[in-house]
């Protein structure tokens, strides 16, 4: 999936284009032209705009399928046989994780659930960036398949509001060389 920086730049550029269009149209309003004279050109432009927008969104949708985080899209990571399964239970306001030292460059299957209310299982890199998450829900087990690329101390942060101790529901896991 695209890096955060790229997403930020794309958003900024698109937002500036929107502002530019609105400013351009607002400035054009100083002049007055009969509405009927504009219509045929405007409708032709709208048709083109519709087709370009539709095509762009379809292409973007198809590209985005390759970024899917769901287990069926990541099962191939487990084919080599070498993987680690970790059980995670979120409780108000702590995590029960049965393995807190994990190998680098190895698929890890987190089986995430909750012992009480909804929590969010978020994995933060040592430099504080969110790299993966899934919900911890009572009565369900969400499977999150993740490969740690770098060794270090990763933070597990609760990302679903779960009560007054929510922000303190943090723990660490250590990722080490094999």
């Amino acid at each position, binding site marked *: 999936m695209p890096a955060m920086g790229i997403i930020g730049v794309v958003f900024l550029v698109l937002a500036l284009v929107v502002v530019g269009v*609105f400013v351009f149209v607002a400035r054009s309003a100083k002049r007055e032209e009969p509405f009927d004279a504009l219509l045929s050109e405007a409708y032709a432009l709208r048709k083109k705009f519709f087709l370009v927008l539709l095509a762009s969104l379809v292409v973007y949708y198809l590209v985005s399928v390759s970024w899917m985080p769901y287990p069926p899209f990541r099962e191939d990571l487990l084919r080599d046989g070498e993987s680690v399964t970790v059980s995670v239970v979120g409780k108000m306001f702590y995590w029960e994780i049965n393995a807190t030292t994990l190998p680098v460059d190895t698929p890890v299957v987190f089986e995430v659930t909750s012992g009480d*209310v909804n929590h969010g299982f978020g994995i933060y890199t040592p430099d504080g960036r969110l790299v993966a998450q899934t919900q911890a829900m009572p009565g369900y087990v969400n499977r999150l398949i993740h490969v740690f690329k770098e060794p270090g101390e990763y933070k597990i942060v609760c990302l679903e509001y779960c009560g007054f101790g929510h*922000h303190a529901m943090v723990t660490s896991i250590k990722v080490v060389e094999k």
Partner: protein
Amino acid sequence: MKHYTEKEELEIRRLVSRTLRIIFSLIVVMAVLGLAMRMNQGELIQLTPSEHYRIMTLHGVAMGTLVFTGMLTACWYMLTRHLRLSIEIMKLALVLYFTAFTGIVLSVIKGFGAGWTFLYPLSTLGQWSGGTAALFLFSVTIAGIGYLILFLSMLASMAGHYGGVHRCLGWHLLLGEKSESPPPIVIISSVALVVGLIAVLNGAAYLILNLLHLGNYYALRGGLSMLTSLGVEGPFFPDPLRAKNMLFMFGHCLMNISIFFGAGVVYAVLPKFTRRPWKSNNIVAAAWNTSMIMVILAMWHHLYMDFVQPLPKQFLGQVGSFGAAIPALTVTIFGTLLQVYRSGIKWLPAPLFMYLAIMAWVIGGLAAVIDATIGINFTFHNTLWVPAHFHTYLPLGVLMILVGFMYYFMGEDTRAKSYIGSGRTGLALALVGGYGFAATFYLSGLLSVPRRFADYALFPEGVLLAKLSVVFILIEIAGILLIAKDIFSGMPARSRPRPYI
């Protein structure tokens, strides 16, 4: 054709004016509570976690419902220019809403703090008493009953006037009939009301589920099972995934239709200033009926991170989220631009606020489409990117449409449509403050700073950006206060009309 007597017209004006003044005042109070949260996150003041999360709960529920009720009221007023709607039902819905609002405030003061989502089963299991949770849940139910009665009444009136709900939705136009009736605001309102009915019914089911769980939990603690006496064995534990689907069908849809009502008002008001027609046709009908379907499908994007949700729903969530952008951009937003382009419009406050609001809707929508991409949501969900996008299209979008409507409404009464006083500076401040504030949220989201956090000890960038956001929020609130001064001055008829630009 007049639909009301002179006395009734006066009653309508009083009702709308008073309601919007109260709503606008409460929005300012809630903005100050938002400021308090950001000050706490920026370590400029110290709130206890309980205080922070209770404020967060009130801010979320109140802002969402205030903006929704305000926009609904504005749209209701514009509809009364076309047909007769029940004033008594509107009054009843508003009385129920403000009663509910009072109950919600009391429950939060008493300790309730489960967030606007009160995600099942948090209402029952949180660190507050069962009584405060019950008060909160009952209050939201009361507001929902008011909305339900009003939605049904409005739809029935419109169907009676235009010859059926299908005609209100513009389906006859889709079937090739050439007609300019009903006007776009009726088609848009009907779409919004159908979505609203689905939302409110889901909300009612979700609230009952929460109330049953709460009641049974405390009954079990007291040694008896409320539900066993009804023949249900064991603890009452509904499916949390189904509950979450119900919640978002409720909350997501209500928030989105507040934009729909806003768009309806823009369709009705903007042409009065551009002096160009904006009529119903098959394209407008197709766009809004598509929006109706897409906005419902899009609600599943709230559950992307629930990996056990069936994959088709996840894929459809992304289809709905992307698909909702197409009719909005190609018909409503394109239509707004076409209304203005080389129109010779005088930028009086009403059209200016509305035009800028539509721009904010597009920018917030762009951010929403980005976040509604499943692969991106994987690292954006529940970061500050999420409040960033709705703090773009709510305060800078829907609220600005409401402000534009208030200028229009007040001016309509006093024939001083072009009056603007302190609102001139107010608008500039609200824009600088609003976009600056939203930018701090967007940046925080890109830096993975989580939302709904009382303490950013782990996130130094979060603290810094929260501090910066305080400056922008102060500017934004100053702007809103200046706008309020303008609107609340009542637009005296003696005010000399002068254009804004």
